[in-house]
């Protein structure tokens, strides 16, 4: 394949990656923005979604589509419940203190990851896509399912935006993000908003996991790469900013796709991590904008 079509393929792959990454990063950004904490276990929620989707495909009869449909509903709900539990049992008890939360979520990462390893084993498990068709471009055929993933992700992003701007919970979350003390003074149930924000963030990651598992395979370590990437997206795109996160996801996703195809995925990651470090070092306000210049 000559350069042009190769680039087009890279762009397609990058776009699909970007949509999925936007979902995952949005979950992280929400937690950053509303709760002011860094959740290092975020990638594990993504992994759990994928693993649960595989389980559904094994346990639910009626073909790939049924299994997938069940997974799409059940997966995020289970992961959301786990997130609420983690918030109540751990995060609330340490009062969402920044450095303690990071250490605690690192612990949570290992707990979730290793439990999955015990229960599901170390092998990568494939899942059959619910819909299979090929889209024929003049130079290559492309998986139709991947385009559907992009489409569904887009819809979910839109839905989240609508929920944040039109619903009461969304209003509560935006208020808490802007000024927590003020929100509390106005009667916003901040603790409950925190739990719901954490759950919502986890569920977004889980949905992404369910969508992606027919393309990638389910594996207990698959949460680590998306964690790093969504970190990069959130820090570059601006914490808690929905639009910023989506834009950054596209920039990162597409350039990562292009660089990975033409150079090397490792090199792409090196550049990305150093870019994040540079943004943080040069940004005058610190991570949450409170540190003085």
């Amino acid at each position, binding site marked *: 394949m000559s350069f042009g079509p190769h680039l087009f393929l890279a762009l397609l792959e990058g776009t699909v990656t970007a949509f999925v990454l936007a979902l995952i990063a949005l979950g992280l950004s929400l937690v950053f923005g509303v709760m002011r904490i860094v959740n290092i276990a975020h990638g594990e929620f993504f992994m759990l979604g994928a693993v649960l989707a595989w389980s559904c495909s094994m346990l639910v009869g009626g073909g790939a589509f049924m299994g997938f449909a069940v997974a799409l509903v059940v997966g995020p709900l289970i992961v959301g419940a786990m997130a609420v539990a983690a918030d109540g049992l*751990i995060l609330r008890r340490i009062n969402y203190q920044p450095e303690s939360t990071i250490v605690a979520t690192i612990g949570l990462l290992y707990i979730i990851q290793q439990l999955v*390893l015990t229960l599901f084993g170390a092998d990568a498990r494939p899942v059959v896509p619910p819909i299979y068709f090929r889209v024929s471009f003049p130079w290559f055929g492309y998986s139709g399912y991947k385009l559907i993933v992009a489409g569904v992700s887009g819809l979910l992003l839109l839905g989240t935006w609508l929920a944040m701007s039109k619903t009461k919970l969304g209003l509560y979350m935006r208020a808490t993000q802007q000024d927590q003390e003020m929100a509390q003074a106005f009667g916003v149930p901040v603790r409950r908003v925190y739990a719901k924000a954490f759950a919502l963030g986890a569920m977004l990651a889980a949905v992404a996991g369910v969508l992606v598992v027919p393309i990638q395979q389910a594996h207990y370590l698959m949460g680590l790469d998306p964690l790093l990437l969504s970190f990069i997206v959130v820090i570059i795109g601006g914490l808690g900013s929905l639009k910023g996160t989506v834009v950054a996801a596209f920039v990162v996703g597409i350039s990562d796709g292009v660089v990975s195809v033409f150079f090397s995925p490792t090199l792409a*990651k090196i550049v990305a991590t150093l870019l994040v470090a540079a943004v*943080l070092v040069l940004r005058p306000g610190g991570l949450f904008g409170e540190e003085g210049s």
Partner: protein
Amino acid sequence: MSGRLTGKVLALHLGILGLLFIAQFVLPAYHHTNVARIMVLATYAVGYNILLGYTGLMSLGHAMFFAAGMYGAGLPIYYLQFGAVPAFCVGVLLSLVLAALFGLIALRTSGVSFLIVTMMFAQACYLALLYFNKITMGDQGFILSKSLESVSLGSFEFAFSDPAVKYNIALLLFAGSFLLSALLVGSPTGRVLIAVRENEERTGLLGYNTYKYKLLSLVISGGISGVAGAAYALLFSYVGASFASILYSIYPILWTLLGGTGTTTGPMIGTGIMFYLVDIASGLTSSYLFVVGAVLVMLILWFPKGIMGAVRTRWLPWLP
């Protein structure tokens, strides 16, 4: 006047070292090697604790300093047939330089920003080691034992394969960093570091250039971590990128939290306990890293002071 290097404090530290020295004559072979390994890793923890426990800066990227020591010592031996002592010096020097450069860039940030910058930098170093795997052999790593038979001091020849040599070199290096940490903490400079941890702005308004002190702490911390990394390469003959991965940045946090941050004796105890916990767990299941997660969460929830921290609060307030 807690922490000053009084006779009592010195006696405690020398006593612990004495016990470790005697232990090599009574330990069975399996534990003998383990303790040697623990002492090298405890050196790493001691280095880490200077930055976290005494200066109050949490880093998620210290594996890059450990790995700088390891590769700085290992690569010259493997490719250039360096002797043990020169290679060790290269390793330590590399980690010191890396810590200084990193500090100059990253110390304008603090708190969570600093933590993420350390994580990103270390991740970049790890990925670079993988990217250049033609030289570094990446994750697979390389073995040094053929290139590194022994070290000679004067007319004495010490073979690295001899367990007694391993143990005593590890003990020597640990003793050096252990005593250095006690000396530092009890000194006026150590007082300033603790003040930075407690209230950085106030420390600045007492006339101290806190940036310079944080940089000093980072360089010492990185240097000691590099000593540990170089020692690990020399004594256990293996250099591999896994020691630059984020797990090896998480381990010192775990060890110092368990043992007690802000205590000189804590890191060693935390390292010892976790080493055996992981050792036992890995014999039982392949998901042994579960204990890492479980212990971290339990520490954060219920024992934030760690073992020696609790001991100090309840019984021994003079403990440094």
